[in-house]
């Protein structure tokens, strides 16, 4: 269940060199960093917000902030942790903004999943399933899980996404959220129990 130490298999040296080049405003280094982390950031934001268009916009803003703030990155934390912290803050701000506009984030992913099913071209990282029934079953389950996540409050949702979707360690989650480990664990437990209740009622 533990998180991998480097989600993309980047060597620390290569990452440091890229960051140094980015601090010198090297466009190619920036492009490389975006290319390397785009899927991780997009997935995190999408699972938090639940809407592809919003998620794309927020994820792009995350990288704009990375570019603007890279001088403030001192290497005390891992770059991915720093990046996730920026992404988490952007998600919180966008959710507050969307909340003020009474936005609901549960449906859009379903439509996308159904489109994907019709195209019969699951994304590259989708686990392989045997037949159409199982694909459909998997997608229905995915829809329910996404709905359940969307119903959690913002902080619980963030913890579920960081720990159970992104598979980060508690240490990384503490660094990203600024919460103490005990707080993370107790809130995550409550979030998991809420999600369990939601899914048990719908799936049985």
């Amino acid at each position: 269940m533990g998180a991998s130490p480097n989600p993309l298999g980047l060597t620390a040296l290569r990452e440091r060199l890229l960051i140094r080049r980015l601090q010198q405003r090297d466009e190619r280094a920036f492009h490389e960093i975006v290319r390397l982390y785009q899927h991780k950031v997009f997935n995190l934001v999408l699972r938090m917000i639940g809407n592809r268009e919003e998620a794309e916009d927020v994820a792009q803003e995350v990288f704009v902030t990375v570019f603007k703030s890279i001088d403030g990155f001192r290497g005390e934390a891992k770059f991915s942790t720093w990046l996730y912290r920026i992404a988490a803050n952007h998600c919180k701000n966008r959710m507050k903004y969307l909340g003020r506009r009474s936005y609901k984030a549960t449906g859009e992913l379903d439509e996308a999943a159904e489109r994907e099913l019709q195209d019969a071209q699951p994304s590259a990282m989708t686990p392989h399933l045997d037949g159409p029934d199982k694909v459909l079953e998997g997608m229905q389950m995915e829809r329910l899980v996404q709905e359940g996540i969307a119903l959690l409050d913002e902080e619980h949702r963030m913890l579920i996404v960081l720990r159970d979707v992104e598979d980060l360690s508690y240490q990384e989650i503490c660094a990203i959220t600024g919460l103490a480990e005990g707080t993370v664990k107790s809130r995550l437990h409550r979030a998991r129990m809420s999600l369990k209740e939601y899914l048990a009622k719908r799936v049985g």
Partner: protein
Amino acid sequence: MATVDHAQASELFSSYWDEELGPDEAARLEEHLRSCVVCRREYEHFERALGAVGALAHELAPRGFAAGVVQRVHKRARGRAFASRGLLDRLPYELFSLLMLGLILAIYVILQMAQPGHLRLP
């Protein structure tokens, strides 16, 4: 070995799932789950829910995402976001501006020289 009651059992689900319980505590919980149908069913729901969360597809960023970010940065900084790559990148613009300055100067000198009485010797 002290036993675990219903409330304690459900409080331990997360730590058990994360494999963070000590061997004694894990054994006590397992013992309770074996003997208590209610808690066993609850843990099965818990396990199934977290299994489904972990199996969520990792969605890929849309095509053109990286180019869109770079474009956004360029737009915000009005083209001054990134450092120039070197002299060769700058040269054509600088050369062009120097040529234009030279041309303007040459036109000015020619016009001055073409004026009547210009450079009239005493």
